């Protein structure tokens, strides 16, 4: 069956896959809010939310319901259209990234092979990079449209932070790309499946990428764009109800996606040690691999939370100094060393 030259079965497969990826990222992000509060509780010798449902597992639903039913306030002098566009863009860019991540190998149904990756484009990493860069617009437009000087200042703060750390992130990735020789995420995972994980070859690169991922997600200790207490709130100062919720939710989706990205780029993605030696094959291996990816991702998410409840926030000048004077030179040095080693190995 075809329509306008596209195979309908193919389209259906992709639509299902996209819905699944979206649903999974939303659900994981939802339970990240629960996890965050639990981890915060445990670290502070409390028990965290435990009232809504067993272990407080229905807490995210309760929170979401609360946000939806709260009064929606749009400031009188705000630019209405852009005010609504801001959180929508934040959500959109957060959800777009999941499209190129390989969530698993291929599943086989009868004689159709279903790849668990929405789009294996050959510039996968650059795509993620671009979409992350686009995330700035949600912050900037939201902050500007509120017509409040504090949200505007916070938006500028956030945008310059994200742009600054994007540079270091890109530079740390280049070293990885020199090693792998491909921009396709699927191929990077397959290479790690055959050999060692990339973190073995690129420890410094991974470390830099990790720090930049913290900054890109606006997570503590880099959460100045939304500093609640000492900086008058952030770019979402004028937001209320679910529009505020979308901003915060987008942050959790970003955290999930960047955790999955780190697992994919540096920790073997859906592959795990002795994957090809345990004697399983086909769909079971794929499902196991998916589980491995999710396990790694959740470990990273836990790390994000752990760091948030350990470290205090940077001052803004320290943040900029770290980004431009420490991370970028380190990333350049890492690039240089990697290039030199590759050349030395080739000769």
């Amino acid at each position, binding site marked *: 069956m075809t329509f*306008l*030259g*596209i195979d309908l079965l193919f389209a259906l497969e992709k639509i299902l896959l996209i819905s699944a990826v979206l649903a999974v990222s939303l659900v994981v992000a939802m339970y990240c809010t629960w996890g965050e509060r639990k981890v915060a509780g445990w670290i502070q010798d409390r028990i965290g939310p435990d009232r809504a449902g067993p272990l407080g597992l229905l807490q995210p639903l309760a929170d979401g319901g609360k946000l939806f039913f709260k009064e929606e306030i749009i400031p009188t002098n705000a*630019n209405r259209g*852009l005010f609504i566009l801001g959180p929508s863009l934040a959500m959109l860019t957060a959800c777009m990234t999941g499209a190129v991540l390989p969530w698993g190998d291929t599943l086989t149904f009868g004689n159709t092979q279903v790849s668990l990756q929405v789009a294996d*484009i*050959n*510039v996968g990493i*650059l*795509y993620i*990079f*671009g979409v992350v*860069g*686009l995330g*700035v*617009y949600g912050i*900037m*437009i939201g902050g*500007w449209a509120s017509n409040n000087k504090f949200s*505007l200042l916070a*938006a*500028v703060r956030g*945008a*310059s932070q994200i*742009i600054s750390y*994007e540079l270091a992130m890109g530079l740390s990735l280049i070293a990885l790309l020199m090693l792998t020789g491909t*921009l396709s995420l699927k191929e990077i995972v397959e290479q790690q499946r055959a050999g060692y994980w990339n973190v073995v070859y690129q420890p410094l690169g991974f470390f830099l990428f990790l720090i930049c991922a913290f900054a890109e997600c606006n997570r503590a200790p880099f959460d100045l764009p939304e500093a609640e207490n000492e900086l008058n709130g952030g770019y979402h100062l004028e937001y209320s109800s679910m529009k505020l919720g979308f901003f915060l939710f987008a942050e959790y989706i970003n955290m999930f996606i960047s955790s999955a990205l780190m697992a994919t780029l540096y920790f073997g993605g859906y592959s795990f040690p002795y994957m090809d030696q345990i004697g399983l094959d086909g769909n079971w291996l794929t499902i196991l691999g998916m589980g491995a990816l999710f396990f790694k991702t959740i470990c990273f998410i836990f790390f994000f939370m752990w760091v948030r409840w350990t470290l205090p926030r940077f001052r803004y000048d320290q943040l900029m100094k770290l980004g431009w004077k420490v991370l970028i030179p380190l990333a350049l040095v890492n690039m240089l060393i990697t290039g030199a080693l590759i050349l030395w190995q080739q000769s």
Partner: protein
Amino acid sequence: MSLHEIIFIILSVVSIVTALGVIISKNPVNSVLSLIVLFFSITCHYVMLNAQFLAIVNFIVYMGAIMVLFLFVIMLLNLNSELEPQKRNWLKYAGAVSGGALLLVITGILRSASMASLDMNTASDIGLIKNLGNVLFKQYVVPFEISSILFLSAMIGAVVLGKKD
């Protein structure tokens, strides 16, 4: 009509409308926002041509970096219609004349240029990153390096200007 044509027509309409929006809209922030949408539709055009690398670079560099800086500056300037300086009449005429001249030149070039039709079967891989890299680093390596020196000098210049205070 094939799917490609439909998408192409939609994208082209979006491009033209947003390009007009850049010039027409009174609010500079709206101008910049339509420019962003314009860049996005151009990115989609690149994807349609299977030039993925160009598309993503356009996406990252223009949409992700340059337009953010534009938006930055315009938002901080806080331009209002009251603050807008009165334009002098001769400035309008000068603008119209120079714009018209540019239009003439472009139409002249387009008329005389021979539009080689791209053979989609053989040339469809030309925009992929591997081929582009080969062309850039083998055939055009000298211009590439020279342009990088240009960027370096611009960066150093910016640092020097910033250091002066």
